[in-house]
C-alpha cells in the first residue's frame, strides 16, 4: 500500500497523545467551568451584600420602631456586628454562606436558610414542572413545525407560539384558575401539598401555575428549535446521509436534531431566570407560600438578611443551570468549541 501524499498524513506522534489529549480536554473544561463559576459567584454575592449595606436598613428600627434612642440602636447594631467595616462584614457573611448559613432574619430571628429551604421546595417545584412542560411542548411543537415547514401545521404552530409568548404569566394564571378551578372545578385554585402527600395531589396544585409559567419558555424553545432544525435539514450532511441510504427517522434523530438543537438549548439557559422570577408573581396568584412571597415580604419589611439569602440562592441556581446548559451544548456540538 502506498503512502498518501504529504498533505494527507496525520501526525503519527499525535495519535499516541490522543488519550492524554482527551483527558487534558476534560480537565481543561472543568477548570474553565470553575473559572466562570467562582468569579460570577463572588461578584453576585458581593453586589448582593453591598445592596443590603447601601439600603441603610438596620435591625434596630425593625425591632424598636420609631422610639429608638441612639444608644439602643448602637447596642443592637453592635449585637448584629453592623458596626464593623463593610469588608469584614462581607467576609464574615460570605464565610457562613459557604457553610450553608444564610444568617438570621432581623424580623423574627429565625434562620433564613431554614425558612428558604421550606419555601424553595415550593418555588422550585413550580418552576421545575414549568421547565419540564416548556421543554416537552416546546420541543414537540418545534419539531412538528420543522417537519412540516412552510406548510399549514408550521404556520399554525408559529401563530400559536407567537400568541402564547406575548401573554403574561399572571394573565394566563388568572385565566386558567377561572376556567379549571372556578368554572370546571377539577383543579384546586390555590394552596400547596408537599410531594410526600402523593404525586397526584402535589401535581394537581402545581399544574396550573406551572402551565401559566411554561408558555413563554415553550414558545421560545419551539421557535428556536424549528429554525435550528430547518437550517440543519438544509445541511449537505443530510443529503450525504440520504445518499448513504440512512432512513428518515435516523437522519432526524442522529444527524438533524443534534446539529439543530443548540439555539433551543441556549434559549433554555436564558429562560430559567424568567421562570424563577415569574414564579414570584404566580405564587401570589395561586396562594403558594414560596420563596417569591417570602422575598417580597422580606423586602417590604426591610429584612435585609432574608432578601440577601433569596438573592444568593437565585444567583447560584441561575449560574449552575446555565453551566449545565453549556456543558450539554458542548457535548452535543463539540465542533462549536464554546468553552463552557
Amino acid at each position, binding site marked *: 500500500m502506498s503512502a498518501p501524499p*504529504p498533505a*494527507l498524513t496525520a501526525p*503519527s506522534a499525535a495519535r499516541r497523545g490522543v488519550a492524554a489529549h482527551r483527558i487534558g480536554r476534560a480537565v481543561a473544561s472543568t477548570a474553565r467551568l470553575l473559572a466562570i463559576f467562582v468569579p460570577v459567584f463572588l461578584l453576585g454575592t458581593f453586589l448582593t451584600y453591598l445592596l443590603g449595606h447601601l439600603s441603610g436598613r438596620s435591625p434596630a428600627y425593625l425591632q424598636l420602631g420609631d422610639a429608638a434612642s441612639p444608644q439602643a440602636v448602637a447596642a443592637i447594631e453592635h449585637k448584629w456586628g453592623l458596626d464593623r467595616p463593610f469588608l469584614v462584614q462581607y467576609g464574615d457573611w460570605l464565610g457562613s454562606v459557604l457553610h450553608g448559613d444564610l444568617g438570621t432574619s432581623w424580623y423574627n430571628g429565625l434562620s433564613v436558610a431554614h425558612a428558604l429551604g421550606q419555601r424553595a421546595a415550593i418555588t422550585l417545584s413550580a418552576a421545575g414542572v414549568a421547565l419540564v412542560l416548556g421543554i416537552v411542548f416546546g420541543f414537540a411543537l418545534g419539531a412538528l413545525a420543522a417537519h412540516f415547514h412552510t406548510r399549514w401545521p408550521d404556520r399554525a404552530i408559529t401563530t400559536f407560539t407567537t400568541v402564547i409568548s406575548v401573554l403574561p404569566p399572571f394573565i394566563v394564571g388568572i385565566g386558567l384558575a377561572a376556567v379549571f378551578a372556578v368554572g370546571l372545578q377539577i383543579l384546586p385554585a390555590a394552596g400547596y401539598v408537599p410531594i410526600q402527600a402523593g404525586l397526584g395531589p402535589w401535581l394537581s396544585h402545581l399544574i396550573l401555575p406551572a402551565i401559566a409559567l411554561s408558555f413563554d419558555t415553550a414558545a421560545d424553545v419551539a421557535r428556536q428549535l424549528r429554525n435550528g432544525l430547518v437550517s440543519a435539514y438544509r445541511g449537505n450532511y443530510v443529503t*450525504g446521509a440520504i*445518499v*448513504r*441510504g440512512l432512513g428518515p427517522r435516523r437522519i432526524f434523530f442522529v444527524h438533524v436534531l443534534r446539529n439543530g438543537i443548540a439555539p433551543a438549548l441556549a434559549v433554555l439557559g436564558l429562560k430559567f431566570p424568567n421562570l424563577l422570577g415569574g414564579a414570584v408573581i404566580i405564587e401570589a396568584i395561586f396562594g403558594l407560600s414560596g420563596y417569591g412571597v417570602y422575598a417580597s415580604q422580606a423586602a417590604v419589611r426591610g429584612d435585609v438578611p432574608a432578601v440577601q439569602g433569596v438573592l444568593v440562592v437565585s444567583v447560584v441556581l441561575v449560574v449552575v443551570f446555565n453551566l449545565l446548559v453549556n456543558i450539554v451544548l458542548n457535548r452535543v456540538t463539540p*465542533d462549536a468549541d464554546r468553552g463552557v
Partner: protein
Amino acid sequence: MTSSAQVSADRDAVLTLTDVRIHNDAADEELVHGVSLRLRRGGVVGIVGESGSGKSLTCKAVLGVLPEHVEVSGGSIELLGRDVAGLSPQEWTALRGTSISAVFQDPASYLNPSIRVGKQVQEVLRVKQGLSRAAAKQRAIELLDAVHLHDPEYVYEQYVHELSGGMLQRVLIAIAISLEPEVLIADEATTALDTTVQAGILDLLVELKDRIGLSLVVVSHDLAVVAQLCDEVLVMRDGHVVEQGPTSEILHTPQHEYTRLLVAEHEQYGLNSSATGPRPPAPVSVPVLVPEPRSSTMPASTEPVLQVDGLGVHFGRGRGRKQALEGASLVIRPGETVGVIGESGAGKSTLARAVLGLAPVSAGSVQVAGRDITHLSGRERRAFGRDGVVQYVFQDPLRSLDPEHTVAVSVAEPLRIRGGLDRAAIDEAVRRQVRAVRLDESLLDRFPGELSGGQRQRVAIARALISSPRLLILDEPVSALDSANRVAILELLRELRSTVGVAMLFISHDLGSVAGISDRTIVLYRSRIVEAGDTARIVSAPAHPYTRLLVGSAPTLTSGPTDRVQRERLRAGLFVS
C-alpha cells in the same frame, strides 16, 4: 449482485439514462433538456460543464435527491435494470448506499460536524449491514485504510474540523464504498482541493474501480479531470448535452464551440503536450507554453519593486505557535511577473499579507520600491496603503467588492482615498481604467450583484490598477471563475503586463495558471520556498520532489495510467523525507 426485479435486455449496463428531462415546477421552467447515457459495468462516464449546466441536477435525479419543486419530468433512469421512477421512499433508502452512492464537492459539509468521522463510517455499516458495534468499527478502520488514510485509527477518532479537505474526501469515499455499491457518482469530488490532493483522490477512484469493480460517473467543470478517467464524455451547457462521445474523440476532434473552448483552455494555459500527439513517456517532461521574454518592454530601472529577505512569519504563541513562513526570500523587478504556487496552508497568502505589511513578521525584512515596510506603525501602514504602491486582487470578487457600491464608485475608491484629484479627473481616470480592462462603460452604474463573475474580476483589477501601483498582488484571481472567464482574465492579465508594465505577484494553487503568466515561479511547500526559478525550467525540469509531484499532478488532457505509478512513487518519497 443485487436482485434486480427485471433483467433488462442490456445486461451489461448498470445505469441507463434515456432522454432525462428535469423540470422546476415552482418556476415552471425546464432545467435539463434531455440527457441520455449508458454506463456499463466497470465503465467510467464523465459529465463536463459549468455550474448551472445541469450536470449536478442530473446526478441528483439519479440519486433521487432532487431539491423541492424540482422533478424528473420526462425520460427514464434505469439503475441495475430497474426504473427508479416508481420507487417508494423505503425502496430508495434500501437502494442508496448498497447499489448507488455518491461523493460531492466540499467534503467537510457532507459529514456531520458533531460526530466523530469514524462513527459515521461505522453508522452505515451498523444500520445497513446489521454489524455489531465492534465488527463495524473494525470494518470502518479497514475501509479508512483502504482509501489510504495514514493511521486510520487516529482518523477514526477525529471530528470534521480536525481533518483536511483531502482526508475528508477519502473518508467520504470510504463511506460511499462501504456497502460495495455498483455505481459511484463523483460530483465535483476534487474541485477546490489542491492539485496534488486532487490527483491523489482521482488516483484512488481509478484504483477502487479496478479493485472492487465500481462503475463511475465523474462530474467536473474541468475537462482534464474527466478526460483522465473516463471512457465516454458528455459536455453539458445550459441544460443541454452539446456533445457526447468517446473521450478521445471529444479531445481530438471537438465539434461544438464550447467543447473547443474547454480543450483550448488546456492547450493555451494548461500544461499540455499537443492534444493530438502521442502520450508523453513521463509526466515530468511535459512541455509548456511559456510567455516569450519581453526584454523590449522591460523598464531600464532595475531597482527591485519588491525585495523580501529571509522572511519569517508565525502566528500564535506558546504551544499553539505556528510557523507560517520561514526564511523566504524573493526579488521582483519592475514589470516582472512572479508566480507563487503551493498547496493550501503552504504560506502563499501569508507571503502576500507580509508584502502588504499585514502579517506579524518575526524575522527578515520586506522592502517595497526601496522602502522597508517590515515593521510599520498603524499610522505608517495606513499612509502606505493610501499611496497605493501595492494593490491586491482577491479570489472572490463578489466578496471583495462592496455590494452597495456601483462599479464606478468601487473603481474610483483608491483615488478618492489618496485625494488630490477633483471629481472630473477621477471620473476620467475611472473611464480610462474600465476601458483598459475591456469592460463596457455602460456597466459603470451597475452593482456587483448585476455582473458576471468575469466582469466582477475585471472591476477588481481596474480598481487595483487605477492608482498606478508598482506591484499588483493577485491572490488566486481566477480560481473562482469558470473556464471561459478564466481564459479571458488570464489573457487580460498578460495584456496588462505588457501595456501597463506593472510587476505582479501571481498566487495560485493551479500550476497551469501560474505557468501561463509568470516569468519566474517560486514553489512554497510547508512554509518554505523549496524551489524558485524560471517558470519554463520549473515546469520542464522540476528539482524538488514536491514540485515534481505538483507537475505530475496537474490535470492534463493526456495523462495516463503510467503517471499514477509515478505519482505514487513521488508521494512515498515525500512522505519519507
